[in-house]
């Protein structure tokens, strides 16, 4: 599903080595936490998967697509195989909850009739059926993050990438968000969660990849892994 082979990324603007010779593999259906300090290279790792950035060297395969050979016009089709959840939710304030979720379907050219069936189903899945007509500013942080998750899920991606999804919600709600992602993972969707909340990571007992200074310093999938 995701394969990094000797991937390095140096930003030409400031010469920073964001990733240094990273090799790892994430299989279909896995639930993986990516942890590391701020500036460790976690965001670059996600940007490379989403093809927002290109590696300086090495090769990346995501959902059977070789990213270094992927033409620009095909990038949207790569992104349709993944749902992105942002730390700051990125919901459109003038749209209702329903419209925010439907917007993701509109963007990939889904028909109105399909949208009408699918959006209520997804809102029910994340427990927000009764908030469909509310605007984001009427919701709590946890609820907004669930809308963001619903939007990520609505196009039925094979992978969910969550970038610090609990960064702007209270600890109790953080646990619920990861619980929800775990439920989604049980239905067969690969889940990748970037976080720096070690306690949360420990309580779920999933695979953990630790990135420091652009290198994978620990991976719980390795035999010699020592818990952080």
């Amino acid at each position, binding site marked *: 599903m995701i394969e990094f082979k000797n991937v390095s990324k140096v930003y030409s603007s400031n010469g920073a080595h964001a990733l240094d010779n990273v090799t790892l593999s994430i299989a279909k259906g896995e639930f993986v936490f990516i942890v590391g300090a701020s500036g460790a290279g976690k965001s670059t790792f996600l940007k490379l998967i989403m093809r927002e950035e290109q590696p300086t060297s090495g090769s990346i395969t995501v959902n059977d697509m070789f990213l270094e050979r992927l033409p620009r*016009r095909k990038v*949207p089709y790569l992104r349709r195989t993944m749902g992105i959840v942002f730390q700051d939710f990125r919901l459109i304030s003038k749209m209702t909850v329903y419209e925010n979720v439907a917007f*993701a379907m509109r963007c990939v050219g889904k028909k109105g009739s399909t949208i009408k069936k699918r959006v209520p189903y997804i809102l029910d899945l994340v427990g927000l059926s009764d908030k469909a007509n509310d605007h984001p500013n009427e919701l709590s942080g946890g609820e907004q993050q669930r809308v963001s998750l619903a939007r990520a899920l609505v196009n039925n991606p094979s992978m969910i990438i969550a970038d610090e999804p609990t960064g702007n919600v209270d600890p109790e709600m953080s646990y619920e968000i990861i619980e929800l992602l775990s439920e989604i993972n049980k239905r067969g969707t690969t889940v990748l969660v970037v976080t720096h909340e070690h306690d949360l990571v420990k309580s779920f007992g999933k695979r953990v990849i630790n990135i420091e200074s652009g290198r994978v310093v620990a991976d719980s999938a390795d035999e010699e892994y020592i818990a952080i």
Partner: protein
Amino acid sequence: MSSFGYLIKEGFKNLFNNRMMSLASIGVLVSCLVLTGSAVWLTVNVTNSVDSVSDSNVTKVFLDDDMDRLHAVAIGQDLLAVDHVTEVQFIEKDEAMEGYREQLGDEIFQNMTGKGNPFPYSYSITVDAETMQNVDQYDKVVEELKQVKLVRNGEELGGVASVNSHRELAQKLTTLSSLVTMMSFWIILALAVISLFIIANTIRMTMFSHRFEISIMKSVGATNTFVRIPFIIEGAVIGLISAIVSVGILYILSNVLIGAIKDILPFKLTSFTDIMWYVAGSFAAAGIVVGILGSLMSISRFLKREGNEILGW
């Protein structure tokens, strides 16, 4: 609703949400199009008046008022015998009046039909090209034409009363026409470029105000074409509305202007109505094309950005 229907709706929504900027663009664009339309109308009128005078470039020979038709036709041979004259064409009285009627309108000629026709018989004379280029030689030909008389059996049966040549005026007007056409071309080109940048700027501002939505669209896998279409529609609609408004303004202005000056001009102006549909079609097409090009100019650079770059973070 189909995707395309949705995108069209979004385009109109952008236009409305961004209405102050849209109105400003339409205002500037209308000014450009009105100036362009005026330049076109001026060119058409100058060209028409030049054509009208150029008709007179074929030297006109007017015969004595009292000459009867038979003699008037017969004098044609004598006119053709003048050196450097290559062609003579007889003009009936009614035909002459019709020519002026077209230029000056019907009202003046209402009671001048049949025997009331004040126009004499006349001829259109064509001289060879060499004479047309040589003023002295041409003047000599004109003098000779003035002397032509129809004499049969020693009896003088009438002759040329006057010779009318607008050669110099025609030359000056032809130069003026070329100048007006050339100036109009550059004015139109400059205004088209200005319009292009105005629309591009409006769309850029719309895109900037929609950068958040665009970043989400790209993250969920919208193609660049999908992102572009509402902005292209917005540009095209701005162009189209401007075209319609400017044609309306030109129609009103030209009617007011013609009403005010028709009595003092020696020739009839071409009404804007005569060219309105060509102008409307061209403006609509140009407005849409400029709108689309302006949108593409702003969007392409914007769409190359990724993720947080779109948001300027």
